[in-house]
């Protein structure tokens, strides 16, 4: 139910984009990291607070209480405001809190979602929050519902290297423009997309799997249009598919 949950947002510009939502497991792991960070910070600061207590007496002890209070109560709040929706744990796991309408996160939303954390933690170990995000189609805990926020997965996305796949290689099919035209007519958009995606992912494929995939694709395309023997002589299945894709996507 949760796996692959996405938040679809339609813009006034008339396009729809999807944001992949983080599930309870990845969120729980981020929370675990955050708690580990806070407790590590407590342990690191303990000797310093002891020194403060010794050196400054009452004021040192007060500073210690204040530092511990601020760290435990405001860690999530401050790091989500300053980190644009990311605590350290969320950053490690590639998660980000954002407005459920796809807009920028406002500080008031961060305050409210962290205020309601108390209810999410009940009765223990975030049971209420965990159960709520399991049942909610947007994987929201109570704090998210109250603040109108969602936690999304952010992957570092780079521009695909389409030019590298299509450009710079000799295509023997170009000598036969009438057959290329027939190919464009007979190949469906889905088949073309599948062939292109296979070429883009070629470096990630195992040799045996790649051979099998290209063989099947080449077989499909061969049945659509018969190119003369001298044009396809010596072409491997992969080269055949590459030529087909070049013919499909290249402008006439």
């Amino acid at each position, binding site marked *: 139910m949760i796996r692959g949950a996405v938040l679809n*947002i339609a*813009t*006034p*510009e*008339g*396009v729809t*984009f*999807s*944001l992949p939502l983080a599930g309870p497991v990845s969120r729980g792991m981020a929370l675990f990291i955050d708690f580990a960070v806070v407790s590590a910070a407590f342990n690191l600061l303990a000797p310093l607070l002891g020194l403060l207590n010794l050196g400054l007496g*009452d*004021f040192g*002890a*007060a500073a*210690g*209480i*204040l530092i511990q*209070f601020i760290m435990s*109560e405001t860690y999530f709040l401050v790091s989500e405001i300053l980190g*644009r929706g990311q605590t350290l744990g969320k950053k490690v796991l590639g998660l980000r809190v*954002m*407005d*459920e309408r*796809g*807009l*920028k996160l*406002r*500080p*008031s*939303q961060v*305050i*409210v979602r962290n*205020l*309601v*954390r*108390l*209810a999410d933690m009940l009765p223990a170990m975030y049971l209420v929050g965990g159960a709520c995000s399991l049942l909610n189609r947007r994987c929201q805990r*109570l704090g998210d*519902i*109250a*603040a*109108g926020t969602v936690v999304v997965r952010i*992957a570092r*996305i*780079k*521009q*695909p290297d*389409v*030019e590298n796949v*299509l450009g710079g290689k000799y295509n023997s099919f170009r000598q036969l423009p009438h057959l290329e035209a027939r190919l*464009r007519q007979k190949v469906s*958009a*889905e088949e*073309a*997309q599948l062939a*292109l*995606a296979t070429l*883009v992912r070629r470096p990630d494929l195992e040799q045996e799997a790649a051979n099998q995939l290209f063989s099947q694709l080449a077989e499909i395309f061969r049945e659509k249009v018969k190119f003369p023997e001298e044009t396809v002589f010596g072409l491997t299945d992969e080269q055949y598919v590459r030529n087909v894709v070049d013919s499909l*996507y*290249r*402008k006439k």
Partner: protein
Amino acid sequence: MIIDLAKFVEKERPYWDEFERELNRVSEGITSLQDLKYSRRMLNLFQRTCADLGRIGAANAEPELKTYLEALVARGYAEIHSVGAGAPGFRFWHWLLGTFPQTFRRHLWAFHASWVLTVVGAVVGAVLMGADPESREVLFPFSHLTEQTPSERVAREEKKEGSRELEGYKARFSTGLMANNIKVSINAVALGLTYGLGTVVLLFYNGVILGAVVLDYIRDGQLVFLLGWLLPHGSIEIPAILLAGQGGILIGRALIGWRNRDGLRTRMRKIAPDIATLVGGIAIMLVWAGIIEAFFSQYHAPVLPYWVKITFGLSEIVFLYWFLTWCGRTKSDEEGGA
């Protein structure tokens, strides 16, 4: 139907690169979308990217490219459509002297509800204490109130040793009080998520304790001590708790949706900034109350005459009343009020 993908990418890539670069600059705060010329350029780039995503989607082309463009559009949408949605920048004094009291007044009914619940609780507490004086051990949560009668406590506190009890501990006592009170108040607001029921119970219980303590001291003839002890910090601390109740009741009402046709998400979204403002104001009030409780309230006569403490406490009440009622008022508020 099938577009020339390589050529399309080659032609559009400079615009995507520019848009991505500028989005990075905006999110890092290097540039601002408040600049009209710049925002027009960004809007142009955003619309172009949207159109590209539309073309790619219609062509059913390469999914990796589609994912890339979707991510770019998502970032652009968040930046461009959020312009003007939030405050241009947080100005502390403007928030404290304007936004906070205005927010309090906007939801005055919730404060009144919070006040009424506490008063009803106080009356019940006083009645219970009056009917059964032995119930103080059950009603009072603090041992220093149950282990001694008010008269015994006053006698002890008025001795020099009593006043020096906190010598060397005031700062940590004050900080501990602040931290504890802020936590309790945050709980009162958060309990609004139980459709306001948790907040109602908390306010009522708080009132019961307050009413019982007040009657206990009055019956023992220690009204002046009580006022001198409670007023300096209580005149800020008790209203802060009432404000926390106001926040909790607001959340409860938004959940129930009473007299509101908006959907749940819209209702919650509308009150979120006000809840955040109330919580910020409550925290400041409780920091002040904590300092006063540790450094002022714990000194009693003869070290600090009661009239000084009572006058100070009453002055705080007058100031707080003025602050919450009049501070940040605009001309339209006054016309509306009249």
